[in-house]
């Protein structure tokens, strides 16, 4: 049983009256606790694929299955699936600037309907496990790039999702912080058993995953 699967995905954009095919018959299967990386050149459609898998975008054709159930971004349950079954980490941290690190992490749990006290307690535990116990009450702009990305990682994990989708999670970091974040992802994958789908253009780091795919000319192929 695959926790996440995508079959025959196609997606194209119209740019200056020209149709650009970013995905052509792309297929992907992700098992529980599996870590997959997707590499490819800039603009090849890696982020688009991840957005489709995360129910943020709709494919032109093809199917996405989460836990064996076919899903798409337009369905009424999509927000709930994004909240409970999926975790997102983006290249830019997208932390809410008006909230502290702890409040940012607690946000998905509060959206899920949990009370704020429990959510903040869980956020504190999670941030402490990522070495940010002294940054709990700092606002997003008071954190370094590496810290911001760790907060965003904690936010992706707080609802214990089955799958974490990471789009260039280290794309904005220097090599040292980048290595730290990758190590953290590997540890979390082992400790919590969540599946990770990581899009990156860093081929060296991508090899740390159990399977590496390459996206080129809209085709997804196993390296």
């Amino acid at each position, binding site marked *: 049983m695959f926790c996440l699967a995508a079959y025959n995905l196609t997606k194209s954009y119209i740019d200056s009256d020209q149709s650009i095919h970013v995905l052509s018959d792309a297929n992907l299967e992700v098992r529980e606790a599996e870590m997959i990386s997707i590499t490819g050149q800039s603009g090849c459609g890696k982020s688009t694929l991840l957005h489709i898998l995360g129910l*943020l975008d709709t494919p032109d054709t093809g199917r996405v299955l989460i836990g064996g159930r076919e899903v798409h971004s337009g369905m009424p349950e999509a*927000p709930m*699936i*994004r*909240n409970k079954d999926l975790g997102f980490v983006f290249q830019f941290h*997208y932390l809410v600037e008006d909230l502290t690190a702890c409040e940012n992490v607690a*946000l*998905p749990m509060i*959206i899920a309907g949990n009370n704020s006290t429990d959510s903040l307690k869980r956020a504190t535990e999670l941030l402490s496990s990522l070495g940010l116990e002294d940054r709990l009450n700092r606002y997003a702009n008071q954190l370094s790039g590496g810290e911001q990305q760790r907060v965003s990682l904690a*936010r992706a994990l707080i609802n214990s999702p089955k799958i974490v989708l990471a789009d260039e999670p280290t794309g904005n970091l220097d090599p040292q912080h980048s290595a730290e974040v990758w190590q953290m992802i590997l540890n979390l994958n082992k400790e919590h058993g969540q599946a990770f789908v990581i899009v990156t253009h860093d081929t060296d780091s991508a090899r740390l995953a159990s399977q590496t795919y390459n996206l080129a000319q809209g085709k997804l192929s196993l390296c």
Partner: protein
Amino acid sequence: MFMILGIVLSVSILSAGLNLFQGYETSLKEVLLGSFPHITIQDADSDYLSIDRVKTLISQISKNPAVETITPSISYSVMASNGSRIRGASLNAYDFSGKFPFPYAKYIKDGKSTISTGEIIVGKYLAKELGKKTGDELKVIYPQLDRISALGLYPSERSYRIAGIYSSGFYESDRSQIICTLSDAETLLNINPSFAKLEIRLHSKSINAATTIATELQQALGMDLAVYPWTMFSAGLLRLVAMEKWLIFIIFCFLVLIAGINVISAVTTIILDKKNEIAVLKTLGATNASIKKLFAYQVGLAGICAILAGQGLGALLSLFVENQGWYRLKGDVYFIDSLNAAIYPINQVIVFIVAACLVSVCIHYPLRQIDKLQIIELLRNS
């Protein structure tokens, strides 16, 4: 900030306008009902009621529980003169022997309220126009049209000492009132001891039922008497004032609506400013409805605080207008000469509900944009 300021100012103007109009309506009603009898009874066929008839009527009318006082009086149109100037006046004569109540004692602002033969009480503006004050002599002239001599009309005139100044706040009354004793009126008017009418004052809780009580009295006393409730003379005026009050309220509501347009603009700006956060919330699973609720809660809370602050400012503004000394109403135009504010809780509740509804509509209208924001577009653009 300007959104809040706009709501505060518009609500304060709405609230102050309503308080002042309510104050005017209340004051006008008070002076009207204070200066004039609530029910007047006269003979339908004659100008006079005999003293025996008056006694019988008083015993009959006093059985009605709504009646507070019954005062027989004489009322005639006369002229008052200071020698060089003459003004028309209304002479009202009462029995000051203590047998009957004198219901207007509270309006005697200067001098005494109980007078004896040779003394009169004069309305404030009448005294002012004729340059008279307490202690001065005032000539009262009654042009007896039925007494014509070879030299023409032969008016009856007497001079009286002003013992008190009458000031009810109702301009028309203060401009024409002369109160004297029955014996002086009988001498001046050359009439036999009698009364012209019965002035009935009702208990405050029964004032609004004056028409019904007048009908009951008419049926009980017979058709040879004419019974007039106060509503016959003043209800139209009060209805007009009430209508003006609500008309002003509606006009001032447009000010709140204009402030509401400011709210639409502010909320639209906030949404555009926060579109990245909206995208994050949507990505994390927040529904459009929950995001709209969050915005509505935050802006709505600010709006409610602004409305309450506006109502507070409106109350202060009304009290300031009431207590300021540099502008007074023209009594000859507006009936009363003072600006009064009446802060009624029900009016404040109406202001709050109307302002809250308008602001709420203006908050929810731009929030519809959140539905149209596509996460993917926001993520790509940011």
